């Protein structure tokens, strides 16, 4: 069996590497190495990880087309689920440690702070994508409708970057780099979108 056909090995590799950042955070937490403000660190780390996995998910199509790595497509939903997983961790960190589980204060926070509203919206859009990530749901929706629904990933990625940009006080280097990567990945799709069958005469 060659590397490019060994689905089980790929799956194990991706599952492990997706969990690796979480394990590193937990080891650091256990050893008290998360710095003076652990809550801030974990909030930031999980938010960035969610965005990183969104970007890796969006990289699958261009990599597959450029290098013929069709095996990668079978891991894409897992990558998307990791984006959701770290998004959940990000939200839980906020609810547990920033809001102290005072959930009634979240509404006011969303209304008063636009960056939180944007983040919540991006997260909410990931929920239908995570729910429909099973084989059974693809079958139920039909491949075409499923693919259409999952283009919401583009909106989530833009929302995630805007959310990141809005929290930065003045040094915007990181969100700008993330933004440029997302623009490139979405631009690739725009440039390679299926051409209409009938062209209008000039």
């Amino acid at each position: 069996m060659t590397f490019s056909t060994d689905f089980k090995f790929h799956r194990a590799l991706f599952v492990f590497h997706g969990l690796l950042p979480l394990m590193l955070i937990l080891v650091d937490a256990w050893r008290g190495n998360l710095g003076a403000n652990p809550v801030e660190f974990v909030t930031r780390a999980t938010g960035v990880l969610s965005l990183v996995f969104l970007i890796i998910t969006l990289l699958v199509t261009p990599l597959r087309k450029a290098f013929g790595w069709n095996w990668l497509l079978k891991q894409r939903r897992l990558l998307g689920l990791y984006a959701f997983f770290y998004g959940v961790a990000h939200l839980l960190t906020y609810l547990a440690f920033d809001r102290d589980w005072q959930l009634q204060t979240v509404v006011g926070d969303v209304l008063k702070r636009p960056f939180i509203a944007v983040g919540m919206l991006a997260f909410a859009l990931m929920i239908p994508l995570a729910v429909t990530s099973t084989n059974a749901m693809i079958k139920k929706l039909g491949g075409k409708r499923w693919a259409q629904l999952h283009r919401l990933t583009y909106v989530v990625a833009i929302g995630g970057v805007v959310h990141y940009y809005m929290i930065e006080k003045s040094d915007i280097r990181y969100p700008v780099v993330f933004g440029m990567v997302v623009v490139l990945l979405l631009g690739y799709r725009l440039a390679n979108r299926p051409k209409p069958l009938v062209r209008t005469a000039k």
Partner: protein
Amino acid sequence: AETAGEAAELPVLNEKLTAFDDIAGYNNFYEFSTSKSAVAAKAKNFITNPWSLQIDGLVNQPRTFDLDELLKIESVERTYRFRCVEGWSMVIPWVGFPLSKLLSMADPKSQATHVAFETYYDIKQMPDSGYAGIDLPYVEGLRLDEAMHPLTLMATGLYGKTLPNQNGAPIRLVVPWKYGFKSIKSVVKITLTDKEPPITWNLANPNEYGFYSNVNPEVSHPRWSQARERRIGEGGTRETLMFNGYADQVAHLYAGMDLRVNY
């Protein structure tokens, strides 16, 4: 020594001190880095001696102090709460002297109403300062009565030691009832003036940072809730106090002012 009157005005603070390593390892000093955990290493070789602090503007005795002269001014130990606008806080045992002492040595003119401060700036010593995203040198300001208030300190140390570079060595302002960014670091210039001076964060984002920037749990902020704070070294959050708990000492300075407008 402080007079009995001055001492009586100082509140007693029975809160656990923040660990020295946290105070010296978690710093907002954008000239060196915008990463709070990176500042200490980047400021390690910052030259703080020789130093000169110039006092000019509306004073009868404009003068320049060198470091020795500043360190000769009789110092006191003051433990204050420190509340950052980002929603975290510390309890810091400062060493320093009241700013009023320094200003009196320059003899402010009667027209003076405000005090402007400026931080040292040199791109050679602060090579990452271009990424700060704020105009430098960093400037801050106070009303003269705020500057002359007995709580307002010029700090030259903490925990009985010389002030670490990352905390604003060799001399910085400490205004305990205002958000931390008002407590300007590594001061080289103090100018007495008759108008409200510009302040760096207000210039960068006027909707978020006002001239006064008094700690106020009732005035919300578009990034951070100001109702509660996270004390560094503790789990959970605690209520933020009006004027950071110094209302008895400073509330009279703002009598009749709408603090939602003058945030």
